[in-house]
């Protein structure tokens, strides 16, 4: 059981800055995120795209912003629990008992949901039968590539993941790469490499095809793919891989008794607390009259929510407002030596 003052759900910019604000006022926290790295949408959706509306930062990329925020919270040694999704929430007297998908448990005084538009999950095939094979011969990510050796693999998608895995697996497996159009969104060099491999007969490229059906007994045996014009091809396959990027899903948050409206959580604007006391929501996931889905708004919301957490974490103490320029306590927490 990890005991800390506050659990932040979501390691996007808003969650990271909230951790900073908690640190400044002397509260401890841990962060949980479903992705394998910090940064949220900034890293997952637009790591290289410049952002122009961070106050006092004329231009920075999503990746730079994330790295700067991580740098800024370094003094607080915040613990990250990545690849974990918060599943269960239970009130335990004045504290919250939280459990993640991977079985990590927390005992916290308050919770800050900074979950953006939900946790990122792989987009899946629309073909119904595909569910039956998921996890045994159909995958949306690869954990152990050795299982594919000497097998026939059908890979669907046209982005970097699809191309990179097609190239890599073509060394040891028979690879079919299937994509819905002639153009690819992946890197130009990889597209060329795939075309070369196709010309050399080292992989089979099918464009303008999409999955029509999958079949097999326990494991996948055949995949049918359908051309834009309607022609159907049947290909033998031991495994199917789908790389269609990620989608954001609200997930278990829906079951926590929060007031939810259009995939967002209603909060007050005094401290960004939800209708459930001790649970706060900040950033893209919260809604209130006038809400702007900007990173800078998330920072403001995080600063106020952090202060809102104080009374739950330290009910017997009073929080004094201080500036980092002059507060000895804040400077000590930041590890500044004078």
């Amino acid at each position, binding site marked *: 059981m990890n005991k800390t003052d506050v659990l932040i759900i979501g390691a996007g910019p808003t969650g990271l800055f909230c951790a900073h604000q908690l640190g400044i006022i002397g509260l401890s926290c841990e962060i949980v995120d479903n992705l394998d790295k910090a940064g949220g*949408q900034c890293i997952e*959706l*637009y790591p290289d795209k410049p952002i122009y509306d961070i106050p006092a930062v004329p231009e920075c990329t999503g990746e730079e912003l994330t790295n700067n925020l991580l740098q800024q919270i370094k003094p607080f040694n915040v613990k990250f629990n990545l690849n974990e999704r918060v599943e269960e929430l239970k009130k335990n007297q004045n504290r919250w008992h939280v459990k993640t998908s991977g079985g990590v448990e927390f005992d916290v005084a308050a919770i800050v949901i900074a979950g953006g*538009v*939900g946790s990122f999950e792989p*987009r899946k095939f*629309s073909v119904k039968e595909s569910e039956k094979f998921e996890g045994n011969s159909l995958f949306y990510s690869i954990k152990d590539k050795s299982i594919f050796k000497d097998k026939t693999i059908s890979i669907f*998608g*046209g*982005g970097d993941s699809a191309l990179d895995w097609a190239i890599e697996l073509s060394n040891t497996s028979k690879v079919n790469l299937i*994509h*819905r*159009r002639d*153009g690819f*969104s992946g890197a130009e060099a990889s597209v060329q490499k795939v075309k070369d491999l196709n010309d050399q007969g080292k992989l089979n490229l099918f464009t303008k095809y*999409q999955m029509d059906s999958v079949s097999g007994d326990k494991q996948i045996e055949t995949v049918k793919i359908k051309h*834009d014009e309607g022609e159907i091809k049947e290909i033998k396959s031991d495994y199917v891989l789908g790389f*269609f*990027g990620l*989608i*954001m*899903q609200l997930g278990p948050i829906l079951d926590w008794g929060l007031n939810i409206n259009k*995939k967002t959580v209603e909060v007050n604007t005094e401290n960004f607390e939800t209708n459930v006391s001790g649970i706060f929501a900040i950033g893209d996931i919260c809604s209130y009259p006038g809400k702007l*889905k900007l990173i800078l708004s998330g920072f403001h919301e995080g600063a106020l929510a952090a202060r809102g957490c104080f009374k739950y974490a330290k009910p017997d103490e009073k929080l004094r407002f201080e500036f980092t320029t002059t507060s000895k306590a804040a400077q000590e927490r930041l590890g500044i030596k004078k």
Partner: protein
Amino acid sequence: MAKITYYTHDNKTYTIDVQNGLTVMEGAIQNDIPGIDADCGGGMACATCHVYVKEEWLNKLPTKEDGEEDMLDMAFEPKNNSRLSCQLIVSDELDGLEVNIPSKQG
């Protein structure tokens, strides 16, 4: 101003006057038309405002910018008449546009 008709996958029809300058996505969101999620808020960074455009409108719409087709690769059951509704800016020329909303967005 343009009249835009949205057909949901369960055969409900919504015909809405949408102001010039808004997007077809915003027209749906502001009028609570179900089935368009627009998770990223119109940034062409997700594919959850995916619609199928009625065939005769395909050539009358502004052409796809770089990136829209890439995002459509991620959409649920993309077809040749797929567009991201956040990229369709409403003008008088779009008066009468009809779009079908897919059965789901992800």
